[in-house]
């Protein structure tokens, strides 16, 4: 079985789904149903979180092997099986998903008042699919979870979103679907070539350089949209702005990581030659993303849009780190993904706090908030500084490692990443100054209440994590050290073999 002695990954994956089923069965008055739905969703996600902590404690950090593996026959004649397992790359993303979901449910406690039951069902289904995606060790299984995420997210944006929600939801869905279908073709080609879709088996399979080229392009189409990389990022600002607060949190916190996770899980190990060949292109796109979107962020009038653009810039750093193929770059990319998941999620929650009170996301609408909401100003500051990558907070270790990794490959690439940090500081501080400091120009702002106990409860774990990740990053870095080392070693071995074959 596995270290835990029972199918823990399946439990963690499908427990939220069971919660969703319970909520769907609740009948009665709207008010009662809404209250039941909220509490059931919260408990379901909290129990999932508690269970997933067993992954944290039971994970063996010294090996790059897949752990907590579960296998069952599913479509045996195709070589497709139900295969779940985690390694250093995926285990922390499962934890990230299970931590963010209860916080999202808490954050939507009062702000979502219509169709509460459907909302909670959508969120639990979403959680289930996200966890399944990170735990899947079969390509077809992965694809199913990867795509299934679209359905609840589409509904969350479309039903509970802002003014242009329909446009944003459709754009989000069709953009990602177009990319994903190309990946499906690639998966089928892999299936045909190797006769299996089992990921650990595929990692031992060598594909011809020509095939690698096409497969890489197909995967790239899917993952680049998900990351999102410049120039296919345009769905993200729309989706972020229109989504309800909790939707933005999950979108920034987990969904964006799916693309980068795909690069790490598939492109790098399966297609080493093509990854190396395409690395300059990825560097170029990443650096353009970092600088361009940072500049765009500076010009934004809408708080959510600004944070959305900052997400694209941060994800540019991540893709840059991944394609350095160095231990530092990869560790840094993984760490940045985690820290960005926590910090950008928290920033969206911060915006949500103001939006719930004033119902505006316009930066010019605010000013002087520090005088009325001092506790809020402090919380917002912690996350802004973490986003800027202030040493001692979550953002710093990851970006530093990426820059170190990039420097090994090419100093100019490292310079591009550094530019991102500088510009990041500019737009984040500019945002903070305009919203929090200055004079109160609008009378209605004076009546604002500071954070409620529920909001404290939402932010407390995120602040704790942000400081923990900044002060003692090793407790996270240790998780993926062995896996990253194995990944780099295998990559170099594969390239070495290809070079020998080429001679």
């Amino acid at each position: 079985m596995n270290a835990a002695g029972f199918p823990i990954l399946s439990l963690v994956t499908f427990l939220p789904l069971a919660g969703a089923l319970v909520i769907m069965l609740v009948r009665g008055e709207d008010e009662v149903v809404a209250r039941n739905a909220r509490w059931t969703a919260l408990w379901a996600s909290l129990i999932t979180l508690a269970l997933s902590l067993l992954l944290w404690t039971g994970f063996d950090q010294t090996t790059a092997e897949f752990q907590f593996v579960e296998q069952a026959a599913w479509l045996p004649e195709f070589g497709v099986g139900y295969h779940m397992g985690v390694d250093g790359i995926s285990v922390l993303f499962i934890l990230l998903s299970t931590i963010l979901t209860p916080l999202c449910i808490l954050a939507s406690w009062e702000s979502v008042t219509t169709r509460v039951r459907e909302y909670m069902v959508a969120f639990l289904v979403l959680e289930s699919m996200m966890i399944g995606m990170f735990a899947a060790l079969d390509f077809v299984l992965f694809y199913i979870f990867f795509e299934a995420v679209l359905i609840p997210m589409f509904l969350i944006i479309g039903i509970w979103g802002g003014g242009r929600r329909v446009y944003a939801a459709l754009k989000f869905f069709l953009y990602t679907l177009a990319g994903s279908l190309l990946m499906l073709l690639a998966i089928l080609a892999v299936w045909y070539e190797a006769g299996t879709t089992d990921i650990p088996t595929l990692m031992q399979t060598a594909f011809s350089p020509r095939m690698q080229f096409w497969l890489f392009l197909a995967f790239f189409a899917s993952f680049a949209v998900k990351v999102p990389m410049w120039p296919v990022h345009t769905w993200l600002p729309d989706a972020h702005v229109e989504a309800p607060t909790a939707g933005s949190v999950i979108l920034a916190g987990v969904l964006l990581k799916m693309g980068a996770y795909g690069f790490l899980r598939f492109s790098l190990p399966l297609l080493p030659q093509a990854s190396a060949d395409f690395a300059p292109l990825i560097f170029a796109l990443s650096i353009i993303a970092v600088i361009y979107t940072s500049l765009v962020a500076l010009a934004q009038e809408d708080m959510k849009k600004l944070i959305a653009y900052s997400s694209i810039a941060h994800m540019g750093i991540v893709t840059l780190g991944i394609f350095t193929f160095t231990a530092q770059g990869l560790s840094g990319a993984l760490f940045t993904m985690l820290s960005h998941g926590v910090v950008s999620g928290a920033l969206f929650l911060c915006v949500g706090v103001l939006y719930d009170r004033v119902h505006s996301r316009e930066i010019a609408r605010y000013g002087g908030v520090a005088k009325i909401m001092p506790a809020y100003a402090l919380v917002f500051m912690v996350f802004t500084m973490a986003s800027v990558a202030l040493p001692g907070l979550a953002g710093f270790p990851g970006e530093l490692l990426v820059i170190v990794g990039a420097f090994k490959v090419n100093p100019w690439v490292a310079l591009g990443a550094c530019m991102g940090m500088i510009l990041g500081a500019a737009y984040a501080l500019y945002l903070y100054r305009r919203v929090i400091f200055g004079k109160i120009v609008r009378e209605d702002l004076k009546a604002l209440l500071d954070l409620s106990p529920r909001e404290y409860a939402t932010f407390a774990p995120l602040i704790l994590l942000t400081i923990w990740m900044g002060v003692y990053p090793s407790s996270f870095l240790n998780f993926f050290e062995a896996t990253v080392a194995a990944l780099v070693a295998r990559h170099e071995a594969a390239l070495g073999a290809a070079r020998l074959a080429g001679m």
Partner: protein
Amino acid sequence: MSPMNWTLATPEIVLGIAGLLILAAGVIPKKETFFPVSMAVIGAFVLTAVLVIGQGEGTAFLGQYVSDAFSRFAKVLILLGAALGVVLSLDFNEKAGIGRFEYAVLMLFATTGMLVMVSANDLMSLYIGLELLSLSLYVIAAFDRDNPRSAEAGLKYFVLGALASGLLLYGSSLVYGFAGSTNFDRLADALGGGTTSLGLVVGLVFVLAGLCFKISAVPFHMWTPDVYEGAPTPVTAFFATAPKVAAIALLMRVLAGPFGDLAAQWSQVIWVASVGSMLLGAFAAIGQRNIKRLMAYSSIGHIGYALMGVAVASDIGLRGVLVYMAIYMVTSIGTFAVLVAMRRNGRALEEVDDLAGIGRTDPAMAMWMAVFMFSMAGIPPLAGFFGKLYVFLAAVQGGYWVLAAVGIGTSVVATYYYLRIVKVMYFDTGTAPLDARPAGLTVVMGATGIATVLFFLFPAPIIAAAEVAITAIAG
């Protein structure tokens, strides 16, 4: 010369006799017998299905009729579709004033025709089955005879259908003239030699044209939108499901069996039909406001995907087609159950916008409709995804990259209009709630919806059954 061996065809014989008895029983009473006759028809379908499952293998009627795993698979599917089709009509026909018992009896005869089609082992029995089906369909398309649109649909279908039958017959006679037989087994022997005459290929193309009309593949699709829109909704539901399965099954048997050695010739024809259907189904549906018309284009698109598997001309491709059609049929019946239930203040509704806001007023129906739409769009983990997966797999395996690429592109476009329906239901605010729907529709929606959602749990048995079925015809 194979013997008469007529007991092999017991299911068809029983169904045919049941039809005659039910017809007699329906005529005699003074008052309208729509409901009891419908129930009797469903009973006859169930009985036939049981007989089909227990049916032996072999040929009968001097080689005109064949029973094998393939015919059993297709027949069970057809009977299921037909029985659910009758259920969909129960309440609707009463309310539309077309609750006459002949309706159910005609469905029964149409179904008998379909069973004969999938068991046809000769161009003659093929034609008899096809015509029995078609004549019944012409009548029920025009069943709402006082409604000009329904009458128009029936007439249009009849005229174009007669043309298609003519093409089919002409093709059959050419095949007979050049190969010397109409029997599938002897055709296969005759064509196995490797020499193919041009006349034979022309005959094959004519036969294909006749069959493509029945499955409404481009370029023989013109009747579909008008007939779908004009016919009463339960009739449209029936058109879109069981006869499509029967015609595709027949097409597969004809192509894989007697003309299996001409794959290089017919594969190109099917390739064109597949690409054309996928493109038309995706793009023409975008602008549709009438949901029945939209479903017509959607069904053309789905036939395009199914034909992709046929064009590949491999066992895996054909198996993919069977799986695809099974899933398509279940999802379509569910979708049409929703369309049949669209009724406000007693008036049947047909516009996409009439669904506005039902996410709020009728959450259960909206949820099932969303499930069907996402499934038709091929989003995992719903059943429709697996259908696409199997045909795409076949295309990739056969190296048909253009087909696969067109399939991908049109999937994205088609997803747009499926999503539009979800959008209308959930994102738009509606006016008044729809009328309460009869329990029968709720059951059909729920059953097909659950099958669509949970298909991923148990795909293996259906795929194994399809595999056995394909071995029977292509083996």
